[in-house]
């Protein structure tokens, strides 16, 4: 840890890019104005399975301003090299190869792209392209559909789960169903592609500039260094911009074919087909327990959607292995291939699904045993990670539960369902715990101190909304001993220092630690320069006794003795100092590292009309150190809102007759509006995780979404006495 005084870190600062954003000056991908750019619009398939038998582009081509209509009929050459770096992509199967054959694999698959001088001309021409098909009956319904053969890691067992279940004093067997969800970020996916010879520059909506760089290089068969990806602002993503989707390829393909830079923006409707989604799940859970509520066995049977061309899997098995002390566990996780596009990670991926089933089931068990739901969780709290016997780096779930109970007023609760009423509204409270992996990956950062005393920090990471611009600047400002105003952090460019994917709540841990390292090194270099310099007032001082504040190096406890960075650099004739910070996570397996939450919800359910409305929600988080409290609140509250959406509203609805999504738009795919969101409050346990990373953070963005759904479902049960096991919970389940 840095000996520097903490001024910016821990202060509730507003976003450094806030003014740019609210005044419309932040340039999101499609906002970039590239010289000579023309516009591309995708024509997508209106069948879910079959073949394209013809594309009549005559009317489209006849439109003024149209430069071309490209499809598989043009046999565009794409290398689609294997991409070793695409470790986030499904390991089994092969990504969609656009325009390489006539096959239609899902409804809404791109079958042609129209390029025109104006967006309006391209849109209208796209409407005029007539595509004919040889359609086959698609299969898009998870229920009853056959499964893929499992990968070895999709089976897990410890102990003798069946025997333990058979001999358990109390048994519970339940099935939970979670609807498919789409990310629905405000900013639509967009790509601008420009070729300069065999060098490709793309402005892309991405959470991983280096991932996009590697994938486009592989698709086009060019060296990675020939691709530059620029993405300074991302208007929300929730996981959907981790992968490089076919439209990015199509933009570059169109730019190559037309010989002009091309801008391609997905429509809101296309965002339901052209990029991924959180798969629908069926989650069967059998629990065995003692009468006193100690879990003895758990058998998980999990089925999730995937496409026919790739097997998408996510961390849905982890919570069942480590979250509670359960001696006997079996898990079978199966993907179900359907005529749909490949799903992807969405906030709290996998964990959120598993935790909904587990925390709902625990609530059912608590009710059956007559044990308080918090007490039941405390009774099953493990002392070490039950999946591998490792000690926890930090696990303060007990404290989350206790603090939450106190702050929420849990002790005033009458456990009997339907015991509280307010006019026509039945009032209920519920709780759940949550968990998410503490991911950490190698990261680098470039730090440069200019002779004018300002600093520039760069990393290729993204800021999809958590406020990376701000929180990293806070870290850098303190470590360099500068004010927030004199530090500039730049991100979102593949030419910057390498960063891991901006997802999985790992950006602070990785990029933050690398920046901390780079800034510490730079500060130490400056201090060394001073204390070894006879002309410096700091000459001869022990380097460890020097701190920097407001750009001035001085002796700790004696501010009068010192000088500024500017003076120091000027005297040495240096234009700048530069360092490279790195973070390499300890490769050991000494600790089990996770972030934890306890979520409390109060709902009102109209006793006759079945409507569920939120009344208040509290989340208590064990996430290590909080760098930027105001942004942490943005994250936590946003996560709760997302969780409320998933619990009560969000549901991608497919017409299984032809595989079309019938609510592909924000008028029909409901997300919460302000009126749905009550009093939300987030509390963070003070402290840090000393083992996770040098700055002590465990990651916040995912865990805040996890546990919200079951807390709400449990509250609905408490309000009404009705257990709803399918998400979202809508009126018809409660009439």
């Amino acid at each position: 840890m840095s000996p520097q005084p903490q001024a910016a870190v821990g202060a509730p600062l507003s976003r450094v890019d806030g003014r740019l954003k609210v005044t419309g000056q932040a340039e999101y991908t499609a906002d970039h104005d590239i010289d000579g750019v023309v516009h591309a619009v995708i024509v997508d398939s209106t069948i879910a399975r079959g073949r394209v038998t013809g594309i009549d582009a005559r009317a489209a081509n006849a439109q003024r301003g149209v430069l071309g209509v490209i499809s598989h009929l043009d046999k565009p050459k794409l290398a689609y090299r294997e991409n070793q770096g695409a470790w986030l992509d499904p390991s089994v199967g092969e990504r969609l190869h656009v325009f390489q054959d006539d096959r239609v694999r899902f409804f809404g698959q791109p079958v042609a792209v129209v390029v025109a001088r104006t967006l309006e001309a391209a849109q209208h021409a796209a409407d005029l392209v007539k595509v004919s098909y040889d359609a086959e009956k698609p299969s898009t319904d998870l229920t009853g559909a056959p499964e893929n053969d499992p990968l070895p890691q999709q089976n897990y067992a410890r102990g003798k789960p069946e025997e333990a279940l058979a001999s358990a004093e109390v048994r519970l067997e339940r099935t939970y169903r979670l609807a498919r969800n789409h990310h629905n970020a405000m900013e639509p996916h967009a790509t601008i592609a420009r070729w300069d010879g065999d060098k490709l520059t793309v402005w892309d909506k991405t959470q991983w500039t280096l991932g996009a760089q590697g994938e486009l290089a592989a698709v086009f068969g060019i060296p990675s260094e020939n691709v530059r990806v620029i993405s300074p602002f991302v208007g929300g993503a929730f996981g959907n911009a981790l992968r490089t989707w076919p439209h990015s390829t199509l933009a570059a393909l169109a730019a190559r074919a037309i010989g002009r830079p091309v801008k391609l923006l997905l429509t809101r409707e296309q965002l339901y087909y052209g990029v991924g989604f959180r798969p629908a799940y069926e989650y069967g859970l059998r629990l065995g327990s003692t009468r006193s509520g100690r879990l003895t066995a758990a058998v998980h049977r999990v089925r999730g959607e995937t496409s026919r061309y790739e097997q998408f899997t996510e961390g849905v098995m982890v919570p069942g292995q480590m979250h509670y002390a359960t001696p006997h566990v079996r898990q079978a996780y199966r993907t179900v291939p359907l005529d749909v596009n490949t799903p992807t990670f969405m906030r709290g991926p996998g964990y959120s699904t598993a935790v909904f089933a587990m925390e709902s089931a625990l609530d059912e068990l608590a009710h059956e045993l007559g044990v308080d739901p918090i007490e039941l969780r405390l009774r099953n709290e493990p002392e070490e990670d039950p999946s591998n016997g490792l000690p926890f780096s930090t696990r303060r779930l007990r404290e989350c539960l206790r603090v939450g109970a106190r702050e929420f007023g849990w002790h005033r609760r009458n456990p009997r369902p339907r015991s509280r009423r307010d006019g026509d509204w039945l009032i209920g409270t519920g709780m759940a715990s949550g968990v998410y992996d503490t991911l950490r990956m190698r990261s680098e950062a470039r730090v440069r101190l200019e002779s004018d005393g300002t600093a520039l920090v760069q990393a290729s990471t993204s800021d999809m909304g958590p406020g990376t611009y701000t929180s990293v600047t806070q870290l850098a400002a303190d470590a360099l001993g500068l004010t927030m105003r004199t530090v500039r952090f730049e991100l979102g460019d593949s030419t910057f220092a390498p960063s891991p994917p901006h997802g999985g709540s790992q950006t602070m841990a990785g990029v933050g630690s690398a920046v901390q390292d780079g800034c510490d090194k730079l500060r130490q270099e400056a201090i060394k320069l001073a204390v070894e310099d006879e002309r410096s007032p700091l000459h001869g001082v022990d380097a460890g006794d020097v701190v920097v504040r407001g750009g001035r190096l001085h002796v700790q406890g004696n501010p009068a003795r010192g000088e500024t960075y500017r003076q120091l650099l000027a005297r040495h004739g240096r234009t700048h100092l530069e360092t490279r910070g790195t973070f390499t996570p300890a490769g050991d397996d000494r600790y089990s590292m996770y972030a934890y939450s306890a979520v409390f919800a109060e709902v009102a359910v109209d006793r006759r009309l079945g409507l569920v409305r939120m009344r208040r929600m509290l989340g208590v988080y064990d996430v290590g150190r909080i760098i930027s409290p105001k942004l942490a609140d943005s994250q936590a509250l946003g996560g709760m809102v997302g969780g409320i959406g998933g619990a009560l509203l969000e549901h991608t609805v497919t017409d299984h007759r032809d595989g079309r999504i019938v609510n592909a738009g924000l008028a029909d795919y409901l997300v919460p509006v302000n009126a749905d969101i009550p009093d939300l409050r987030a509390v963070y346990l003070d402290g840090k995780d000393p083992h996770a990373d040098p700055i002590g953070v465990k990651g916040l963005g995912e865990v805040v979404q996890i546990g919200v759904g079951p807390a709400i479902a449990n509250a609905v049960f408490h309000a009404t006495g009705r257990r709803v096991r399918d998400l979202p919970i809508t009126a018809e389940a409660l009439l």
Partner: protein
Amino acid sequence: MYPFAFTKASDTRQALTAGRDGGRYIAGGTTLVDLMRETVERPRTLVDISGLPLREITVTRRGGLRIGALVRMSEAAAHRGVRALYPVISQALELSASAQLRNMATIGGNIMQRTRCTYFRDVTAACNKREPGSGCAALHGVNRTHAILGTSDDCVATHPSDVAVAFAALEATVHLLGPDGERTVPFADFLLRPGSTPNREQALRPGELITAVEIPAHPRPLKSGYLKVRDRQSYEFALTSAAVALHIRGGVIREAKVAAGGVGTVPWKLPAVERQLIGRRPSDALWTKAAEHAADGARPLQHNRFKVELLRRTVERQLRVVGGGK
């Protein structure tokens, strides 16, 4: 979007001429422009009528209301006379859409708005309303939000308006101006049930222009209100809704005006419920008994069976809210 010509009418005569020549009237544009973007609507000519002098709300001498066709939803909702005389209208308006849309959309346009059926709005799906004879994808498709009343095998789409439900309950009339002069049509006859011609939605003759909606005077005191039931608390169309107006004198219900929304192919007047109420004394038992008739004749589909019971409960609730009870 398909190319179109745009003209602005400076007076009603100009508008009618342009309308007679096939122009489509546009005022707030909140429905039409959306549908043009989706290529559901492909008008060749748009006639902007927003400058016509149809923006007055007048209280008639006997205590009715005349709302000009170009009055904005937000203006009508905020109007003192509307609020005092017919809270059911202002409530229905305020529960509609969003503040931004209400500031643009007009009363005439509101009752002309087209269904939210997603198959209607998706030009790649079968829809008899959009393309006569192509079939109805909703009938055996995803139909949770669709109608249970007034449907046919050719169309099961709901009429989406809230304020039209209030107009139906209050037995409004629609004032029209056409090439052949003025006429009025009872609200109940203005919006058409789909039958075998779901593409015909209003009893408008070619080129006719809505000039106003008139609410007749009802005996006073009149209590009224609107209840909208929906998954989301705001900015969503109704699963079910109920407009209720009651004239209670001497402890007896003398007049009852009740209509339902979200359930019918048109705003659904409920005469059977009204008959149960008239001449009786308000009580919780009466509300329940009357509301039992709210879904008479309902023809639920695969995903919207719950609407039958939800409709009864919606009407029961709103009768109690307006008529009193616990």
